[in-house]
């Protein structure tokens, strides 16, 4: 399960993730983080069995948690299936299907945003 955590000016200075790990024993994988002085946003991945528990603990510490389902969004009205995004994706989440259309394999996407910056038709967006 992937979650986006939003920290405010108070929680951002707390060792929230370490505390969560200690309390739940869950292994938390940080996929992406942008942390500033006043607020922060971190994308984490947690094993599914522990996900609910981790979410609870995070929330009690005052962190705003959004469960992330799906992946980068592709607007099929705009996409021309050129494939310019394919070799950019670090996890090979973008690929051709049998019809030579470009598709997103949602479970592989780590929301890094690399592809959204290369698409010539602005067909790709991150859902948050």
């Amino acid at each position, binding site marked *: 399960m992937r979650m986006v955590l939003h920290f405010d000016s108070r929680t951002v200075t707390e060792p929230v993730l370490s505390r969560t790990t200690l309390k739940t024993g869950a292994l938390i994988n940080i996929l992406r983080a942008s942390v500033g002085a006043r607020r922060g946003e971190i994308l984490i991945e947690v094993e599914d069995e522990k996900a609910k528990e981790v979410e609870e603990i995070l929330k009690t510490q005052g962190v705003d948690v959004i469960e992330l389902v799906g992946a980068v969004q592709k607007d099929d009205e705009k996409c021309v*299936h*050129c494939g*310019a995004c394919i070799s950019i994706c670090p996890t090979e989440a973008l690929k*051709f299907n049998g019809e030579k259309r470009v598709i997103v394999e949602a479970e592989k996407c780590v929301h890094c945003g690399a592809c959204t910056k290369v698409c*010539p038709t*602005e067909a790709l967006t991150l859902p948050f």
Partner: protein
Amino acid sequence: MVKSVEEINQKIREGNVRVVTAAEMKEIVAELGPEQAAKEVDVVTTGTFGAMCSSGAFFNFGHSDPPIKMQRVWLNDVEAYTGVAAVDAYLGATQLSETEEGYGGGHVIETLVEGKEVELRATAYGTDCYPRKEIVTEISLDDVNQAVMLNPRNAYQRYNAATNSSNRILRTYMGTLLPNFGNVTFAGTGEISPLNNDPEYRTIGVGTRIFLCGAKGYVIGEGTQHAPPYGTLMVKGNLREMDPEYMKGAYFPGYGATLFVGIGIPIPILDAEMAKFTAVRNSEIETKILDFGVARRGRPVVRKVTYEELISGKVEINGEEVRTSPLSSFYMAERIMNELKRQIEKGEFLLTSPVDRIPREEVFKPMRQREIRVVKSVMVKAFTISPDTGIEDAAKLIIEKGVNHLPVVKDGKLIGIVTSWDVAKAVALKKAGTVSEVMTKNVVVTFPEEPVEIAARKMEKNSISALPVVDSKRNVLGIVTSEDLSRLLAR
């Protein structure tokens, strides 16, 4: 056995023509051989759909009251070229909007083809016959007199693929190139693209009727930069008859605007030779992977490659697998081949014989330049210091010599640089010590033979104002500063 285009058209009219796509033809020839295939098949449809920068459209806007002789004109803030006549203009696909980032001529053309309105704005100097000096209005394709797509260079037969040896990400017209050979991008549709199926240009020539973005268009000659086997076509078509489905305004981040153009060309199978040509395979179509990490005209060739390898999704470079990205849409190219096939079968699309052939031999010459200015010719003496020079002494040297940059050298090799700013800051903070504590260690350098434009770009990219000039052993030969360069480049 020899067929004529007229005979094929007769079959089309009678409804018994045999049309196959270029993809299908490979199999047919493999199975039957060229002789038999030529008997069975009358037309092979080809297709390509890629970002074709060299595209645009002519417009005649009609006359306003009182009339205006447009000196400058903008469509949705994208400027079109008016040096043609009073109310004629040519809008290029790569022209950028003056107000909106990520928007350009290609988007304007797509918007118009979608049936929407765009804002027309023009200014003029005013004449006795055209007194009006400015106008702002809305127009759609229904309002203009002519709207003709005219593309100086489209449908590249094959194209150089791109990669990047440098250690930074590059944003190019070949898409985004990751550092350290991180990926390869390529353009063109290989064995299904038009010119690869008629490499001698026997049936594709001046006057060939083609499928251009959903309309019937024409080849009007060889394209600019035509240099077989990197052949190109100049094409035209009526924008009003086009279908937005088969074109797309685009923007390559960090590079600029362009237009995805969909082209399909029917190839009449006149004889066994044409059947053989249309059986060409991706494995037989070669191109080169060029290193865009070197910003020179003569970009180094990393290796030769076939379209088969490029299309497979990975190629090998220096023993490593590198993933590839096409920049042309194979999905759209196939749709175009199939749509053209359908139109011919239905009798909606008749073939033409070229009225003239396009050249089979041509070279793509480089620009004749007055001179290529290199760093060596503008560099000045650098005053170097050693890492254990005191900050005070460095400050003195800066003032005495009237310079802003001091390369730091150890055992003859460049190891850092201190600027007057670094020194001033150290002095202000009352730091007493050596320059090694305040110097920048990661120095961006240039070389004596590097063109000054590249040195200028390095400074701009890194927001710095000077580059030490070093030889291959990192010995400091001099320094170039942005002031010297801008003086030179302004000339």
